[in-house]
């Protein structure tokens, strides 16, 4: 292990859990509302298109993880440093956006609105601590959390009592609104970049089943959730600020016990914590590669994100406008192009090495 870094070794099942949480968490919060505002009831189509793209890019990220992770790859230094810097910057930006969304959710739904400072002040140290622990630990936390999340999802599906209209997904027509929504909200997708830092344990690099299952769940969950939203709220999704919280109140026990969104809120907060920690860890890991001291890197990451959040949090609308502007294309480059380029560089290096060996 290099100085200033922690273990990035993960098992395929842990990577699968991380991939699920990284992908799904912030697609069930404010994104459906944004999508619906852009393309009406067809927002589920937009989600389906983008998630398919994400899953395709994940193949490259997984290959990089199986090859030992971004920091350990034997690729030209310029490519590696550029990829690291882009990954750090991209992850930092994402952390700011998602942190601001989390604070907005927690502050409006869980607390009286004026307490967003309390939420931010609670969140940042916890995230810094978990980020400091490194990928191996976050992967284990995800592995533990995924049981709770799974139980909550199953419970909500079994007890669901939607007064929905399944035909609300009709007509299925991917029109210009759908494509423009995909373009405008690019930033909310491509969540697998931090996983490039992970390194799949050597003796488990042939076990692909957990990852494949996870990808299937990601697709099923994202598309299923957005379809459920479309069926329950239809065009009203454009007014649904926090989608998963809105959907979770519809259950058979709510008439008996009152709204039972407690488990769903808890599960989502755990997912958000893991996702944000993952982003911060990527920033810390990438920074530590240059700075050489992990603790300093984690503190820098947390403070930087926290400071920017302070600016973004008071106005989620401003954050929304910023991240739907030109910066989304930078994110697209980071999330989609960088894994492909890094993988291509690694593959070329590997072939060159093999040729040298044969010669």
């Amino acid at each position: 292990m290099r100085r200033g870094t922690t273990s990035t070794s993960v098992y395929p099942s842990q990577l699968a859990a991380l991939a699920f949480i990284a992908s799904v968490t912030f697609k069930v919060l404010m994104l459906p509302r944004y999508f619906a505002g852009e393309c009406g009831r067809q927002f589920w189509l937009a989600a389906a298109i983008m998630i398919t793209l994400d899953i395709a890019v994940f193949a490259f990220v997984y290959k990089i993880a199986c090859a030992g992770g971004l920091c350990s790859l034997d690729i030209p230094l310029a490519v590696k440093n550029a990829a690291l810097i882009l990954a750090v910057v991209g992850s930092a930006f994402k952390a700011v956006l998602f942190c601001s969304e989390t604070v907005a959710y927690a502050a409006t739904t869980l607390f009286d609105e004026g307490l967003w400072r309390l939420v931010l002040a609670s969140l940042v140290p916890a995230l810094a601590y978990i980020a400091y622990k490194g990928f191996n630990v976050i992967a284990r936390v995800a592995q533990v959390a995924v049981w709770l999340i799974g139980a909550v999802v199953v419970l909500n599906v079994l007890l669901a009592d939607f007064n929905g209209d399944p035909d609300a997904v009709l007509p299925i027509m991917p029109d210009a609104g759908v494509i423009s929504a995909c373009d405008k909200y690019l930033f909310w997708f491509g969540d697998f970049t931090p996983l490039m830092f992970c390194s799949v344990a050597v003796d488990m690099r042939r076990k692909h089943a957990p990852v494949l299952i996870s990808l299937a769940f990601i697709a099923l969950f994202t598309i299923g959730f957005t379809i459920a939203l479309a069926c329950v709220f239809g065009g009203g999704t454009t007014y649904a600020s926090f989608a998963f919280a809105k959907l979770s109140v519809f259950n058979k026990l709510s008439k008996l016990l009152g709204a039972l969104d407690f488990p769903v809120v808890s599960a989502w907060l755990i997912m958000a914590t893991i996702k944000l920690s993952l982003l911060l860890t990527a920033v810390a890991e990438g920074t530590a590669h240059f700075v050489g001291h992990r603790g300093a890197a984690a503190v820098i990451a947390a403070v930087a994100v926290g400071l920017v959040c302070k600016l973004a949090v008071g106005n989620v609308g401003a954050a929304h406008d910023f991240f739907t502007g030109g910066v989304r294309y930078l994110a697209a480059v980071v999330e989609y192009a960088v894994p492909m380029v890094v993988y291509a560089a690694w593959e070329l290096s590997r072939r060159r090495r093999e040729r040298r060996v044969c010669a």
Partner: protein
Amino acid sequence: MTAKRRKKAHNNGRAAHTKDMIKIDAATKAVKEEFGDAADLIVMRFKAMGKECAFVWPDGIIDKELFELNIVRPLKNCQIEVKTQDISAVLTQKTRPTTPIEEIDEEEIADTVAGGDIVLIVDGAPSAYVFSERKYSVRAIAEPPVSNVLRGPREGFVEDMKTNMTMIRRRLRTPKLRLKVKKVGRLSGTAVCIVHIDGVADPKVVAEAERKIDSIDIDGVVEAAYIARRLEDDNRSLFEQVGSTEKPDIAAAKLLEGRVAVIVDGSPVVLTVPFVMFEHLQSAEDYYIKSYRATLLRCVRVMALAIAIFLPAAYVALQEFQYQMFPLKFLITIMNSVYGIPLTPTLEMLVVLTVFEILSEASVRMPRYIGTALSIVGALILGNIAVSAGLLSMPTVLIISVSTIGMYCVPDEANTASVLRLTFVAVAGVMGLLGVILGAVALIAYLADLRNFGTSYLAPFAPALPGDWKDAFFKGSLTEQTTRPYSVPNVNHRRMR
């Protein structure tokens, strides 16, 4: 006989003619000075084998009957002149000790006597001779107070290391059972026995345990906890990283899984390493009853522990911040019950927690005779008077009661759970449900990073080891336990065919 002494005994035979002979007067005087004329030091001088002899022993630790019959009497009857070099052979022939006679130098006499052995000093002999005939009062074998079972063995370890070793040996009748004794503590000289099964336990774990015990440089060890803290990788942690048990059947089962046990003389607690957190949620009885019932009980224990730690915090968080999560009728009931209470929910919970801790501690310490009366007073004070007086609310008392009962469903984790629930209540009072969840995730991260003897603390859940899940939440049938756990390093995974 230790290897060191054995080597000395061998060498002494060869080099007797070059060593200084022991002068009995000087030697006995030196021992008395070393002991500061202690009241329990007995020095008995007599003549035997044509020489001045003296037995030195600590009173109350030896088997006087055996000593008198098998050692003193035959020796006193031996009045023939014996040459110096034949003393050892004559002693072996004439006396009938139950353990081999050791030979020691004059400098080791005091330590040997302090260890509980009888030393024979013969004037002019090159060595002193050690007879080990210890016998002292040991507590009777009984069921340990915190490991009660409805079905299964009820024997528990005692304070005598030899008895404990015997109890394990009775359950593992294999020559591959290794018991290695070390002495720890400069002044206490406490015997510590490292136990493992050769061919099952990972040699690296055994070596690591030995290394850690060898590195202990302390004046005295009076309880196994002293050794436990030194075996832990992070002894500043709130969480125990060394297993402990007072039952020989559990110790034997853990040895069979590939663990290493450490028996400490003077303590009924036997330590086991490596340790995973889930061990505290397992009970011996799980292996003696049907697996369905065992599964149910394990799930109950997990739930109980989670309730114990998080229920008070969740209640405070919901009352202070996230009241909207209460169902309406429950909320009205809570509002009615907290009406007029002068304390905030957080303070109220902390007060009740503190009172419960006081009651809990007092119930352990108080004399039996007034225990009943004080328990009633404690229950009345909390359960009735404080609530009627409007100082505390009923739901708070109820929640703490449920939490405390849940805590003692897993008694091994009670100490940790007690600190954690207090911490989480404080966190909930300040940061609400968000704080509780962030705290829980941070706690899981901390535990996920905890390792001991190469084993992850949260195994077999993080990392996931599906092979071990048949003895996790779901207890498989004993016939399914064909392999040893993968979370414990061992060199032979096959248990059953």
